[in-house]
Structure formats: structure tokens, C-alpha cells
């Protein structure tokens, strides 16, 4: 593990690691203490609502990092990443539905929607979904295999740019229509909800919610570090090279199809995992998660935060979604206008997003101070 640990140590500078450690302390110490230990009346008490909201947004942030890998670094704009997120969510949802047992409305072995459809047994693709390990496998495999097969044909046919984006948009739309059908066997437009238990634990208690919250935080940090490892490697430099001059990459002896396929599939799998963490926290999954607008919103998070920096993706997901949760309460009918305006303003005035603007301010500030004249030596 020596060289690997050393490699991970190099991913961030001292300041970066300090910020990361501070975030981890807030997530894993401050939040649990303030939510579980402090009395409800206390000034510093953090409500279950805030925990649920933050946990949900961390799942979005994981998706944003996955999006940044494929869009920010590789230059492939996917407008269908919501699909992979939703598929991961559905895979987890199947397990959660099985865990309801006979506690549904109809007190049947089968989920309510199947009773309603007058089905007598689970369809074949529901087999083994009562096993957590199998559901966890599906969370990874379903988005992964779909992305691999789709990506294989798309990249091999050299579909690029806006054409690729449109096809991904069509893909998620097609799946949404498929999942809206009751006969597909995933609860139609109601999807899955009314979950009771996860791994034997009641799903709605503060403790279970806190566990899911902390798990989301851990996965977010792990995703960030893994993504950072990737973009700092030569593999990552090839991805950026594909973004900037694909033909030169090809004539340098790399096969761009393999590189794109690898990062595309990985990105989809990360989205699937995020979806699986999301569903038990929000307590519902339905086909609206596959709507084209949701996937477009993912791209907006990354654009707002700043493409090609990873941290920017997380910031963007946080800023947009906290704004959304506040806005949809305060001025529910204006949210979409605000989102549209935000996107236009960012495109016009912050082409490199919040992170880019921050960099610019910092550079100006530095330029005002005298800089030692010593030149950086060649690497």
C-alpha cells in the first residue's frame, strides 16, 4: 500500500488536505452531534430536515463530479446522466420494496402496485432483489452495462458534440416513457415509495438517516479523491487531450474510443451509486428522475461551479440546490425562471464558473503584491 498511499498523498497540497479534513470533521462529527445529541430546542440543533436536504445534495454532488469527469475533462456533454442516477436509484428501490414485506396497503407478499395490476408473482427481473448484495450489484451493473453498450456504439461511430448530447437526451427520455408504463413492472408513474426498512433497520429514524447521510458524505469524498487521482494521472491528461485535439491523440497512437468508453462507463457507475444513496434518503423514486430536464440541470450545476476542477462541480451542485430548496419555498412559481437566468448569467459573466471567478480574484490580488523574481525551474 506504500506507493498507493504516497500517490494519494500527492493528490492535493497541504491546504487542500486541510480543507478536506475540515469538511470531513463537519460531516462526521459536527452534524451527528448537533442532530442526535443536542436537544431539539438548542440553538445549534440541526434538524432532520436539514440532514435530509444536505444528504440529498451530497448525492447530487457525487453526480456532478461524475459529470465533470466526462464533460469538464473529456469534453463530452452528456444530457442523459439523470438516467444512470435513476437506474441506480431504481435498483436500490427494488430492494427497499422487497423489504416492505407484508406491511403494504394490501398486506401481500407483492408490492401494492403489482397487486393493483393483479399480478400473482414477481416478474423474473425481480428475482433475488430481496438480497442486499444483489441489489448493490445491480446498482453498479445496470448503469455500467447500459453506458458501456451505448458508449461503445456511439464512440465507435464517432458521434460527437451536440449529436452525442441529443442522443443521450433521447435515451433518458425513452427510458422515462418505458418506466412510466405500469406493465414495465416498476410502479409506473408512482414509482417506488413508502419504504419501511433497510438492512433490517427502520428507515425513517434519525439514526438511520444519519447513517445514510454519513455514508453519502464518505462516498462523496471517496469519489472526489478517485476523480482527482484519475485527472492527475496520464490517463487524465489523455482525456483532456481528447477534449482539445482528438485527431492528434489518435495520430499519437492512442485509441480515443477506449479512453472515452472507460471514463463514460465509470461516470455512469458513479451516478448509479449516487442514485442508490439518494433513494433511501428521499424515500421515493419515480420516472420523473429520468426527465430530460433533470439531466440538463446536472450540466447546469457543473457549469455554475466551473468545469474541469472537480471541486467546482461540488460547489455548483451545492449552490444551485440550496438555492432551489430555498426558492421553491419562498417563490415556488419563479424557480425555473431563476434557474434559467442563473445559467445565462453564468455563461455570460462567469464562463469558468464560480471556481474560475474565484481564481481570477485571487490572481489579481496576488499580482498586486511583489513576486519573487526567481523563475520556476523546468519540470
Amino acid at each position, binding site marked *: 500500500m506504500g506507493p498507493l498511499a504516497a500517490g494519494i498523498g500527492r493528490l492535493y497540497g497541504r491546504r487542500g488536505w486541510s480543507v478536506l479534513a475540515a469538511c470531513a470533521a463537519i460531516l462526521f462529527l459536527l452534524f451527528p452531534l448537533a442532530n442526535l445529541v443536542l436537544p431539539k430546542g438548542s440553538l445549534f440543533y440541526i434538524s432532520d430536515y436539514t440532514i435530509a436536504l444536505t444528504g440529498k445534495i451530497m448525492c447530487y454532488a457525487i453526480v456532478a463530479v461524475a459529470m465533470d469527469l466526462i464533460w469538464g475533462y473529456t469534453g463530452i456533454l452528456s444530457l442523459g446522466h439523470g438516467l444512470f442516477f435513476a437506474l441506480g436509484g431504481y435498483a436500490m428501490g427494488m430492494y427497499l420494496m422487497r423489504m416492505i414485506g407484508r406491511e403494504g396497503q394490501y398486506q401481500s407478499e407483492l408490492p401494492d402496485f403489482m397487486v393493483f395490476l393483479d399480478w400473482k408473482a414477481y416478474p423474473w427481473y425481480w428475482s433475488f432483489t430481496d438480497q442486499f448484495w444483489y441489489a448493490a450489484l445491480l446498482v453498479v451493473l445496470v448503469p455500467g452495462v447500459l453506458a458501456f453498450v451505448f458508449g461503445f456504439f456511439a464512440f465507435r461511430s464517432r458521434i460527437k458534440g451536440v449529436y452525442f448530447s441529443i442522443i443521450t437526451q433521447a435515451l433518458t427520455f425513452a427510458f422515462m416513457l418505458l418506466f412510466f408504463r405500469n406493465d414495465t413492472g416498476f410502479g409506473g408513474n408512482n414509482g417506488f415509495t413508502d419504504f419501511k426498512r433497510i438492512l433490517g433497520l427502520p428507515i425513517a429514524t434519525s439514526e438511520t438517516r444519519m447513517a445514510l447521510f454519513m455514508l453519502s458524505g464518505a462516498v462523496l469524498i471517496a469519489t472526489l479523491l478517485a476523480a482527482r487521482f484519475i485527472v492527475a494521472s496520464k490517463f487524465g491528461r489523455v482525456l483532456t487531450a481528447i477534449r482539445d*485535439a482528438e485527431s*492528434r491523440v489518435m*495520430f499519437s*497512437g492512442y485509441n480515443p474510443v477506449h479512453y472515452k468508453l472507460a471514463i463514460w462507463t465509470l461516470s455512469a457507475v458513479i451516478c448509479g451509486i449516487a442514485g442508490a444513496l439518494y433513494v433511501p434518503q428521499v424515500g421515493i423514486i419515480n420516472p420523473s428522475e429520468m426527465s430530460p430536464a433533470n439531466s440538463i440541470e446536472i450540466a447546469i450545476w457543473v457549469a455554475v461551479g466551473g468545469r474541469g476542477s472537480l471541486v467546482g462541480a461540488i460547489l455548483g451542485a451545492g449552490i444551485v440546490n440550496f438555492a432551489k430548496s430555498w426558492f421553491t419555498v419562498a417563490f415556488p412559481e419563479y424557480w425555473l425562471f431563476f434557474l434559467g437566468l442563473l445559467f445565462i448569467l453564468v455563461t455570460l459573466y462567469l464562463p469558468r464558473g464560480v471556481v474560475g471567478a474565484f481564481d481570477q480574484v485571487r490572481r489579481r490580488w496576488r499580482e498586486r503584491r511583489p513576486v519573487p523574481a526567481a523563475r520556476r525551474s*523546468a519540470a
Partner: protein
Amino acid sequence: MNAAVIREGDSFGGGAAAGGRVLTPGVDVSHKTILYLEDISVSFDGFKALNRLSLDIDNGELRCIIGPNGAGKTTMMDVVTGKTRPDSGSVFFGQTIDVAKLTEAEIAHAGIGRKFQKPTVFEQHSVFENLELAMKTDKRVRASLTARLDSAQRDRIAETLDLIHLAGDADRAAGLLSHGQKQWLEIGMLLMQEPRLLLLDEPVAGMTDEETERTGELCKALAGKHSVIVVEHDMDFVAGIARKVTVLHEGSVLAEGSMGEVQNDERVIEVYLGR
């Protein structure tokens, strides 16, 4: 899947691979010829860009290819590097490598390097990283995830930086270089690939006189160790470096010989000056 049949014998690099398929690099030049084009025809929407073009390049040769606009010079390079598939005819790299069966990446890995008309470098990467990415090594996905430069590789990059006069700019983003410097960087990237055959499409376009002269020196120095094909409009440049010149016209060879010979060839004069 196209497994290239490559004969052992010519020692060239290690057992590296391109595009996930393992090739044993090694170009068979036992007949002194490194590139054979035979009866190549390419047409775009009825326009014959190449018309039964046949051309041989000797191992270690420096060949200049000239011709008026639309003569098929760039299309010929596209065919050799796999960007365009010929409608008919065959392209062999050495005695055994059938270029038509390989992808662009595999052709590059087999040892054909190409400089584009418009300099194409990775603008967001530093000059150093540009050379690192081009360097001949295992270019498969998994290898590049864990790749680290060893000291021999760093030395090779440093040597190339000196050769292309960019040692002082190693850490600069390639996008910040001047046009001429980008041309040089691209040539440097080609050299990092350790190609057997270099295709240079207008290597001195946009260069100052001094840079042009240095590029000419470089081309001459490269020949011998590599085979070099230069496509150029700049006649002074061609006259300065050429040993053998091929004139293309309407997709096939019009004349071939020394610069003096082709300049006095009546058909060439006709094509260039009109009747």
C-alpha cells in the same frame, strides 16, 4: 479484429501496444522500401482526389512532394495515416504491414507520424506534457492510469526540448506558443513517437525565415534515421532540402527526380505556369 502480421527482425522499440491490441512493432524494410502506394484511388462526391497514384519511398529517404492546390497531397497523407480509406489500391508500410487494415492509432503505433497542415498540439497542456503524451510507450487505458516517467524518459523529453528550442518554455501552456513554435512542438511530438516514417504537411507555413532555415536543417538531420516525406508550397524551402522531388497533379504522379530535373520538366512548367 485486425491482427497485423508483422515479421520479426527489425528491432524497433519494445513489445508495446496500441488500441488494446498487441502489436509487435517492426517494419520490414529488407527491400529498402518503407512505404508502397499502389494504384490508390480516392474520390469525394465524384471528384477524383487521387487517381491511381503509385509511389515508393525508400527507407531513410527525404522526399519532397509538391504540386498545385488540389493535386492530392493532403489526401495522400490521409490515406497513409488511415484517416481516409482508399476506394481501391493498397498501401504497405514496409513489406508486411497492410495499412488499410489498421486504425489511425495502430498506424501511428506501427511507426508513422504525421504533422498536420495546421499545427495541432494540446493547447491546455504544458509543452512538457505534450511531449510526454506523444512519447512512445504503452498507450492503453490501464497502463496510462499508473504511468510514471522514469529518468530515461525524462532525459528523452529534455533532449527533444533542446532539439526543438523549447527548453525554456517547458512549463508554459502550448496554447501560448507562437505559430512557429507550435509547428516545432508538433515536430517534437512526432519525434517522441519514434516513428520510422514522418509525414510533414507544410512544416514551414507561418514560420519566420530563421525558423524556416532551422526547420530545413532539422529535416535534413532527421533523414537517414527516419524516412521523411515533406509536402510544401514554399519552393525555396524545398529547393534547399530536396534530394528527390515528386510532383503530384490531379491525383497522380506527374514527374519525379531532382529539383533541377522537375523544374525543367515541360509538363511541370505547364501545370505550374499554365499555357
